[in-house]
């Protein structure tokens, strides 16, 4: 082949790279492992991990230990999906395109919105993009964000909006839910609330929708999609944009990624939506066909005037979400939501009966995640977390890491995978830990 090109050797082939910037040595990168060697190496490294999903996992805070049916792995692992590119050529991508169309349909329905896009990187970046849409639509430069929004999402918003000269106002938490008092005004572009919030508590959506209605701001919700098996959709409450983290819909926790974000909104904002959209149309013979659409919003056409810079999204993860939602159906989704909530109720009751632990906000309704307060404060929380981990229970997210005024507060999450005996083991460990605390 070199001969046909007219090159003497590979050096010749790289002749356009000036000699003085060519690397004169081999890279110092280990490799050359056979498949078997690599397999051994990775197993050894894997043994240094203690995967939460293998024991019992009560960690939540944006990623939850849900189950998914085997069809999700089997179908999303088909290499015709896995190794395809973005479906820019519709005739040879109808499979991926129809899947995205079905995903958009189900996400829009779940959120109570008219349209949803093909996915975002994750829930946090979807929140930031929602606020960008709101500021560009309303031409206002101020957004109000609940302090009950996931701390990583709040940090992401700060970064994304920093150079757009947008003021980000954080509405404080009071008694475990957002206190909006006076924060929304006629200069506000958007109000963003998380449902349920980072503490696990259910927020009231109506006041948010009402104050947005009054001021012309867009109401934005970041939601846990599984919670929507029980809780009403933000669309029903009159919200304008619904975003969130899709991980509970059949995505492995995977140390935090890749997951997928979703973005749903009203039809009137369709030309402002970030990312890819699939639409149904016809082919030359009048047959139904799917294609990427409204591409003039996007960076590859609009360049510096694009609605967003997003190109690659998290399509394969969204496909998992699509398959999972199809497998759940309305009843399956409701059952998972119910069982997650029932387990959390059980946990709340049993753990709060342990001396030294109480519900942080006893009057606050929650979904599948509950906040507790340890009388022994942060040291007791840390001790509890360590003890549990030593016993194969991954649990306890200390809220003081993000909220200065939440000494001794921690959350625990349940899913349909949580068994009564897991709850009992956790409570037994709590008895031991806190009895020790008290006797010290």
């Amino acid at each position, binding site marked *: 082949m070199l001969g046909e090109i007219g090159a003497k050797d*590979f050096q010749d082939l790289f002749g356009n*790279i*000036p000699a003085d*910037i060519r690397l004169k040595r081999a890279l*110092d990168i*280990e490799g*050359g492992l056979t*498949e078997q060697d690599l397999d051994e190496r990775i197993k050894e490294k*894997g*043994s240094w*991990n*203690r995967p*939460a999903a293998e024991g019992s996992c009560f960690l939540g805070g944006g990623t939850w230990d849900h189950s998914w*049916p085997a069809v999700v792995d089997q179908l999303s692992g088909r290499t015709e*999906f*896995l*190794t395809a*590119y973005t479906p820019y*050529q*519709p*005739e*040879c991508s109808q499979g991926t395109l*129809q*899947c995205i169309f079905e995903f*958009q*349909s*189900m996400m*829009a329905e779940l959120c109570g919105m*008219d349209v949803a896009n093909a996915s975002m*990187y994750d829930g*946090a*970046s979807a929140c930031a993009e929602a606020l960008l849409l709101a500021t560009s639509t309303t031409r206002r430069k101020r957004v109000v964000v609940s302090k009950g929004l996931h701390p*990583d999402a709040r940090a992401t918003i700060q970064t994304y909006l920093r150079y757009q*000269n947008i003021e980000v106002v954080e509405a404080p938490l009071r008694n475990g839910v957002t206190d909006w008092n006076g924060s929304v005004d006629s200069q506000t572009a958007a109000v963003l609330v998380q449902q349920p919030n980072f503490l696990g508590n259910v927020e009231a959506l109506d006041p948010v929708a009402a104050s947005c209605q009054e001021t012309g701001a867009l109401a934005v919700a970041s939601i846990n999609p599984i919670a929507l098996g029980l*809780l*009403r959709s933000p669309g029903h409450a009159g919200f304008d944009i619904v975003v969130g983290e899709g991980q509970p819909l059949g995505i492995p*926790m*995977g*140390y*935090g*990624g*890749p997951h997928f974000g979703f973005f749903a909104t009203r039809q009137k904002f369709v030309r402002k939506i970030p990312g890819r959209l699939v639409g149904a*149309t*016809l082919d*030359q013979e009048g*047959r139904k066909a799917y294609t990427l659409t*409204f591409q003039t919003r996007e960076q590859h056409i609009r360049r*510096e005037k694009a609605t967003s810079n997003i190109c*690659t999204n998290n399509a*394969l993860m969204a496909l998992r979400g699509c398959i999972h939602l*199809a497998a759940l159906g*309305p009843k399956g989704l409701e*059952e*998972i939501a*119910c*069982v997650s*909530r*029932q387990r959390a109720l059980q946990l709340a009751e049993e753990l709060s009966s342990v001396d030294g632990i109480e519900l942080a906000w006893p009057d606050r*309704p929650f979904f599948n995640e509950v906040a507790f307060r340890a009388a022994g404060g942060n040291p007791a929380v840390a001790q509890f977390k360590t003890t549990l981990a030593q016993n194969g229970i*991954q649990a306890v997210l200390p809220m003081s890491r993000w909220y200065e005024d939440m000494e001794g507060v921690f959350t625990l999450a349940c899913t349909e995978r949580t068994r009564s005996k897991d709850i009992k083991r956790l409570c037994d460990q709590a008895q031991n830990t806190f009895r020790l605390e008290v006797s010290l």
Partner: protein
Amino acid sequence: MNLDIVHLLIEDSVPGRRCVRTSGADRKAAIAGLPQAEVREQAPALPELSEMDIVRHFTRLSQKNFAISTQFYPLGSCTMKYNPALHESIAGRSHWNGLHPWQDDGEVQGALSLMWELQNDLAEATGLPGVTLHPAAGAHGELTALMILRAYLDGRGETKRRVILIPDSAHGTNPASCTLAGFKVLTIQSSKRGLLDREDLRAHLGSDTAGLMITNPNTLGLFEENIREICDAVHEAGGKVYMDGANFNAIMGVTRPGDFGVDMMHLNLHKSFSTPHGGGGPGSGPICVTEELRPYLPNPRVVEEENGYRLIEDSEASIGRLRAFHGNFGVLLRAWAYIRRLGAKGLLRVAENAVLNANYLRIKLREHWRVPYDRTCTHEFVARPKKTMRENGIHTIDIAKRLIERGYHPPTVYFPLVVNEAIMIEPTETESKATLDAFAQTMIEIAQEAEAGNSALHAAPKNMPVSRVDEARAVKEPILTWATK
């Protein structure tokens, strides 16, 4: 290719049909204590299907896709190389995908050690010592780097430097990312040789210059030979050089951006490092920067300490976060596996064979197609229909659709914008000579059809689930969900 119509899930829905069941659900008990106003009254209208319904549905849809596992996929600047099976199998194991992102560092030492090694390998491969694995994709990485540049300039009080220079051959994400980071974009022309026009660059450099975003090798598949001089000029003007690393596959082990003056760059692990594209993602877009810019990298980062590895968020100057958690770990894992299998030697061989394959195709096709920059290319080259073909009314779109009909995924078309009717061909190193020969033969036959003005080209593809789709109609009468009336 499955030509049958596959109904929408909702069209096959049968009331009461089930797939997943969960025991113990008691709605009454579950809603007890929830505020009435927030409880859903009506279940969402999701489809009701059996497991077999679902398996057939998605399996049959998968059969309507071209993919690397079924077809040659010479998509320029997308690096559609083979994705090894072992890497998928590893990523599916619970030791990795069962990790919760809030587990303590001590519980996830395997994951952190792997991220640490990957950071070091990417630093070595690029010659840029500061690495973050945080960004979710290439464009996300660009944005991260531009934010770093903003933070760096602001930290030095250089608030007048707000212009980023971008060549006209650049990917659209470059200018879009600039806007998000609050920069203004000025476009630099390409020279007659398809390289950045140094005169035009000099004319635009000034006290308002924040930096240059350059893709090297560029999207014409040409190495920017004067890259060192270009970087020096930008630095002299007080700016920084960002390199779009989409085409890194061509230069791995051959030359290092850090050595030729680049200050920051992103890598697409889903291109150069063989993680699967998944029909549009997930990707991963690590950023590599100079020592000077390291303090500005996003949080968190992995460090090695005496007692093991830790995630830290200790830099005051950090730009913060652009996503939740610690990066697309599952993608990082596959890239790590790829690097460990290839090592330094293998990575160099990747670049060599990628460049060899592209040049081989260029030589095979140069007489039959117009190749506007017909000299030794890197991993890809750009062709276009000859004038005679265009006079016959045959355009690049027709070529692309005819290729589909002949069983090939088309190259990237109508990009880069600097070549009219561009056909951008990147075979990658994982294709055999036999595949390249067969593709070349097909391209030659299509060229002959185009020269003859064969009107069948306008009708292609005829053997796919759908023929050419009416994209204008999709915009004029938008149907974006199955609920649209």
